[in-house]
């Protein structure tokens, strides 16, 4: 989220698209109802299904899953054609005026530089024209045909309301109504907020779905303002935290990168990360990269990280591939290239696409370790449960360890919500049975592995032997100790550079925030963006002062929000070029002539002149990007591509299947199906009564939604002779599931490119453990395809067939 849950009360228009907040985030959705009550805000829901969110919406429009980009580019076109643009914002805060390199083009659904062999683009031409002074060339009059604004207009020209209807199946009048309501938010005094979730991410072009809306929000001037922003609802309680702390193949905490093997030494690595400003006076905050990186290395390897060994640069693994994400990991298992796997509170057997392949892959492991407070299907993937897990135990050689862990009720520590709040919590009960805290388990694994290397030696043990382990009880580090480590501390006494007699932080003391971090090894910080969460003032994540002056929804003294306790990102953009709030009613921060001040922590250096310093300090431009240069693998502008399995061909570029640079493994291609064989457009989703595969263990939730079902329209039920509440079978090349049929008016047949498209909705909460009835899930049917940029599986759009049937062979 750029903003926070509580900020949503400040909005005038809520657009829920690519998500279902009421269903998946009811208590966050409260703030939508608050906005309605406080500001008479309106709610628009655009979704293939008439969802629980739609049930309280002011306006609902249907859309075919996987066609969001066409819809959104259509809205952008509507706004531009009707001059519904917040021009001052666009001119001041976006790269609309930047000139793009000659040679960059878009044709037949492809941008310049496509390599069909590698399924990759050469992104050389996807960039700005740079002048002699090293700064970008721009045309503030927006006349130059090569300026971003004109290229954008040209790029979206095809997305007329008629084209939108043809692609999305959204009736033209409904689309126009939505576009018209959205376009009204182009005035400085009206803001719109976008609430989205996996409905946008789980596509082979998920990142571009989100970019499309981000671009629209920039054009309407809704980023950085109260009641605006791009708000990813996020699924799990600390998924934000785990991403912040970089538990991903290619990340270092705080969104730094694991080096690739091309970066042969520290100099090369850091050299490619200069982040020189592209315009005068810009902050380009990533210029501080070395400070954050080296402070991290000090937190990892302490005294073993020295200037002499490039702060242990080579202790880090170097990547030969962009990422070893989960899809690749399971592909490797399937190819016999991976022998061991750890699942920490994770249930891949039900979470990842193409369950058949997941079972096959796990069966090829030597060992599998599952840490969880609850039973998981993954821990029992080798156990036969008839139709619900049809395996031959004897033929599976994997050794499986199941370790009982603590759950929230026994844990202490911080979780990061989607509004980036780090909130501390306290244990309420003791561990049941022999369950242990995850921290204890991870410490034990490290210490015992270290012991083996000490005793036996082995391959490059230094990173293990020298891992910094500064805990009172090495066997069980406390949450408090680790929280301090994340915040960062002075390794040596820090003195004021301008006045060496002045001590800023004594050695061993907590640093006040990331501004204090240094690149000379004198500071250590586990995750720079968290710096300030546990400083000289104590544990700020545990703050519980819920006062909120002038009811802005900021709650500055409640817990801690990264970065620097900032509640709304890019908040400088809430004020115009003179530093005055776009909307006096919704003042956030303002320039008083000398400094920035207001209800939030300014996003730019407090004394930076509003006319000089741009709000988007993480970009070398200081401005936001309507044209994203080479930052994304599949194009600087979003373009409509069909899902890999689509009921209709791509009318924009008929030759192209799916996203041309999406993650696809050759071995999975034959498992894709076509519309003639599998005519129905399926989608997967959560239900409000359940949380993933956890709550089927909770009898109350099992009572509220007991049994696996699929949802279809009355028309399809009629056509297939499927009865409401009767059994049906849904299948494609990857699998087949039996489910109860919920026949509903909430799913309607859409007309796309002249043909009717029936939608099959498949919720995902059932398995073969827990209190709920045994059942299957969508991942028995979903394709093994990933988003081009972040490899998110395409769970939201695939093809199936359906027929009436008997119940499962074994119930």
């Amino acid at each position, binding site marked *: 989220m750029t903003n926070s849950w509580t900020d949503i009360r400040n909005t005038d228009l809520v657009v829920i698209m690519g998500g279902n907040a009421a269903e998946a985030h009811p208590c966050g959705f409260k703030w939508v109802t608050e906005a309605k009550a406080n500001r008479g805000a309106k709610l628009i829901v655009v979704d293939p299904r008439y969802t629980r969110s739609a049930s309280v919406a002011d306006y609902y429009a249907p859309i075919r899953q996987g066609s969001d980009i066409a819809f959104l580019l259509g809205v952008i076109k509507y706004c531009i054609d009707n001059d519904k643009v917040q021009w001052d914002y666009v001119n001041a805060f976006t790269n609309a005026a930047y000139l793009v390199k000659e040679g960059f083009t878009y044709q037949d659904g492809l941008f310049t530089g496509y390599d069909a062999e590698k399924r990759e683009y050469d992104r050389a031409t996807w960039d700005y024209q740079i002048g002699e002074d090293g700064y970008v060339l721009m045309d503030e009059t927006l006349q130059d045909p090569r300026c971003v604004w004109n290229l954008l207009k040209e790029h979206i020209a095809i997305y007329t309301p008629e084209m939108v209807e043809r692609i999305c199946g959204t009736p033209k009048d409904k689309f126009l109504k939505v576009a018209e309501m959205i376009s009204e938010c182009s005035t400085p005094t009206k803001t719109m907020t976008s609430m989205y979730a996996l409905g946008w991410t789980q596509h082979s072009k998920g990142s571009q779905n989100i970019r499309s809306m981000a671009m629209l929000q920039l054009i309407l001037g809704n980023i950085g303002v109260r009641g605006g922003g791009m708000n990813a609802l996020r699924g799990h309680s600390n998924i934000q935290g785990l991403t912040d702390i970089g538990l991903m193949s290619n990340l270092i905490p705080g969104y730094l990168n694991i080096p690739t093997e091309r970066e042969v030494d520290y100099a090369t690595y850091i050299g490619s990360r200069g982040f020189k400003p592209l315009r005068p006076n810009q902050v380009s905050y990533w210029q501080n990269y070395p400070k954050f990186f080296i402070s991290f290395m000090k937190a990892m390897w302490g005294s073993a990280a020295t200037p002499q060994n490039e702060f242990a640069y080579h202790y880090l693994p170097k990547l030969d591939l962009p990422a070893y994400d989960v899809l690749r990991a399971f592909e490797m298992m399937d190819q016999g290239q991976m022998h061991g796997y750890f699942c920490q509170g994770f249930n891949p057997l039900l979470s990842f696409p193409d369950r058949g392949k997941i079972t096959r892959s796990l069966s090829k492991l030597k060992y599998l370790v599952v840490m969880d407070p609850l039973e998981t299907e993954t821990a029992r993937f080798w156990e036969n449960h008839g139709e619900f897990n049809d395996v031959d135990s004897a033929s599976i050689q994997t050794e499986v360890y199941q370790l009982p862990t603590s759950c929230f009720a026994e844990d202490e520590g911080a979780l990061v919500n989607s509004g980036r709040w780090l909130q501390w919590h306290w244990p309420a009960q003791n561990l049941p049975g022999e369950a242990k805290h995850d921290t204890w388990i991870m410490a034990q694994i490290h210490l015992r592995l270290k012991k083996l290397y000490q005793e036996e030696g082995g391959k490059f043990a230094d990173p293990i032997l020298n891992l910094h382990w500064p805990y009172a009880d090495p066997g069980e580090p406390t949450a408090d100790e680790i929280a301090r480590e994340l915040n960062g501390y002075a390794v040596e006494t820090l003195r004021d550079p301008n006045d060496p007699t002045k001590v800023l932080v004594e050695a061993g003391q907590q640093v006040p925030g990331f501004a204090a971090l240094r690149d000379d090894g004198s500071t250590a910080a586990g995750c720079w963006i968290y710096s300030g969460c546990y400083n000289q003032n104590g544990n700020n994540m545990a703050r519980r002062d819920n006062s909120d002056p002038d009811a802005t929804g900021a709650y500055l003294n409640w817990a801690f929000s990264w970065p620097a306790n900032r509640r709304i990102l890019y908040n400088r953009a809430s004020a115009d070029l003179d530093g005055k709030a776009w909307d006096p009613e919704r003042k956030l921060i303002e320039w008083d002539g000398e400094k920035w001040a207001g209800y939030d922590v300014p996003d730019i250096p407090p004394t930076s002149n509003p006319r000089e310093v741009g709000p988007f300090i993480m970009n070398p431009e200081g401005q936001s990007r309507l044209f994203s240069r080479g930052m994304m693998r599949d194009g600087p502008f979003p373009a409509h591509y069909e899902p890999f399995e689509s009921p209709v061909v791509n009318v924009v570029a008929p030759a192209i299947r799916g996203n041309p640079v999406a993650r696809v493994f050759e071995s999975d291609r034959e498992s894709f199906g076509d519309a003639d064989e599998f005519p129905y457009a399926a989608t997967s989703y959560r239900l*409000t009564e359940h949380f993933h595969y956890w709550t089927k263990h909770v009898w109350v939730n099992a009572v509220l939604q007991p049994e696996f079902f699929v949802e279809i329209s009355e028309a399809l039920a009629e056509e297939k002779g499927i009865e409401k509440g009767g059994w049906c079978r849904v299948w494609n090349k990857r699998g087949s599931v039996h489910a109860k049929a919920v026949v509903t008016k909430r799913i309607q047949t859409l007309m796309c490119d002249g043909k009717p498209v029936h939608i099959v909705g498949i919720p995902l909460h059932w398995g073969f453990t827990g209190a709920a009835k045994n059942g299957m899930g969508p991942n028995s049917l979903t394709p093994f395809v990933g988003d081009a940029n972040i490899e998110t599986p395409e769970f939201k759009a695939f093809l199936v067939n359906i027929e009436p049937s008997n119940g499962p062979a074994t119930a």
Partner: protein
Amino acid sequence: MTINVNPPVAADTTMQMGPQDYIRRSASSVPAPARQLEPVAKLIDVSKCIGCKACQSACLEWNDLREEVGVNTGVYDNPHDLTPNTFTLMRFTEWVNPETDNLEWLIRKDGCMHCADPGCLKACPAPGAIVQYSNGVVDFVKENCIGCGYCVKGCPFDIPRISKVDNRSYKCTLCSDRIAVGQGPACAKACPTKAIVFGTKEEMKAHAAERIEDLKSRGYSNAGLYDPPGVGGTHVMYVLHHADKPSIYAGLPDDPRISPLVEAWKGVTKYAGLALMGFAAAAGFVHMAVSGRNRVTVEDDEEARRLAERAPGAAPLDPSKEPSA
């Protein structure tokens, strides 16, 4: 600032409501209460409800109810009906508005309405099994319940359910145990969108008025409050976007009132019946007093004997048995 780990939640947990606040007690009478509690009400704003079932969940947890895991029958309503363990239930209706031709997903939280004039209490034959507090809470006292099911017949909303396990009647208590310590019902506390709110009935009516105004501004010209006079008003009220036709919300009664049959049964029949039986008995005594017993006379006996002796197959008379004239 100080970091407050465990600030108190419900400081005072002493019960402040009790039998002294009864205004009605089934099959018995109560003295007029010394004090009048402020009438309370739960307001359910159907237009704000997202059907998330948090209320059901919170209700099960607070009241320690253990419902059975059922099956899917092609709808979202689970369980499929109120039960002795399900005091409240979301009922889903897919309704196409004939005026706009748009689908509307009407979701109503069903449960006890806590009528000002409770049909269950009127029908109940067991003294003290159903009580009504002066703040409007209608509560079942299971210790006194005999499981006859009369409350089911008395209720205009089809709410009470009799347990097959302990043969006692159950329904929403409005969390009387929470209200007694000054807290609202568990469902109202949990409700994510505050579609369920709880407070004094006056507060709730005022809040409802605001909501209705908002709904009218959004095109629901028939939005209104459901506080049916037929049962003297209720302490659970609904805000409906289509208050002109309550029955589209999964059969919410358009004009609920205690059934005339129940009125007759618990009214005239009860009293007339007793009177009639009393009269019948009394009539007997009077008749006895007036006309005395109907006795057999000596003549009757002689006639009988003559008839018997003259009859065919009579044995010769034994002189010794000849009665003396």
